[in-house]
């Protein structure tokens, strides 16, 4: 980091050119959450019978499986971005902040991957 020019002193310290993208993507995933969660809640309410056969039969259908995978993706992206802002706002020690962000990314990608795989396994009809 330079200490001569004023731009050199601030370069790399903030969210320049990135903050708006993060903020906008967070809103876009909020919209997809709204659409997909509406589908999810209405579907669950209409399903009525929550036996294993009935629920997995519903999730295994192509449209439900795709919507469910999109819901998982949208929810985890949104949660990851929201918690990232939470960590950036409240964890001030740079080492702890780095560790918290790393843990968040591991949890978000790990949880999302496991959820998507579970839906795919049902949709592709693996005998369990």
């Amino acid at each position, binding site marked *: 980091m330079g200490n001569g020019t004023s731009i050199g002193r601030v370069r790399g310290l903030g969210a320049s050119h990135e903050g708006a993208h993060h903020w906008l993507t967070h809103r876009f995933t909020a919209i997809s959450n709204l659409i997909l969660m509406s589908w999810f809640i209405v579907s669950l309410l209409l399903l009525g019978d929550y036996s*294993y056969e009935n629920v997995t039969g519903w999730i295994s259908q192509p449209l439900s499986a795709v919507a469910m995978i999109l819901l998982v993706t949208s929810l985890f992206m949104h949660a990851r971005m929201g918690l990232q802002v939470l960590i950036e706002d409240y964890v001030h020690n740079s080492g702890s902040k780095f560790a918290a962000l790393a843990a968040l990314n591991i949890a978000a990608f790990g949880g999302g991957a496991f959820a998507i795989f579970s839906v795919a396994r049902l949709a592709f009809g693996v005998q*369990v």
Partner: protein
Amino acid sequence: MALVGLGIFVWWLGAMGSGPEAYETFVWAMTTPVGYIVMVGLTWAFFTHMMSGLRHFVLDIGAGYELDTNRLWSMLSPVIAIILTVAVWGFILVRGGAV
């Protein structure tokens, strides 16, 4: 919402992907008294988050900043969230299809 909600959501999907026995365990846990408290709590947390998000969408487009309007929706949003929560669980109870 993010930690408890996603945790249970992944548990539910993972249990179904793992088979009927794991799904039975999930259903057992969610139909205990604590399970119902958690599920109703999550429904409420979701709708509160949703209503607050919708309110901020309106504020983000630059509308609703008049003091009276702002005050009205800041109070209405959580109330609507509670009404939606009651509506969802009322529907489940009235239909009698709860697990």
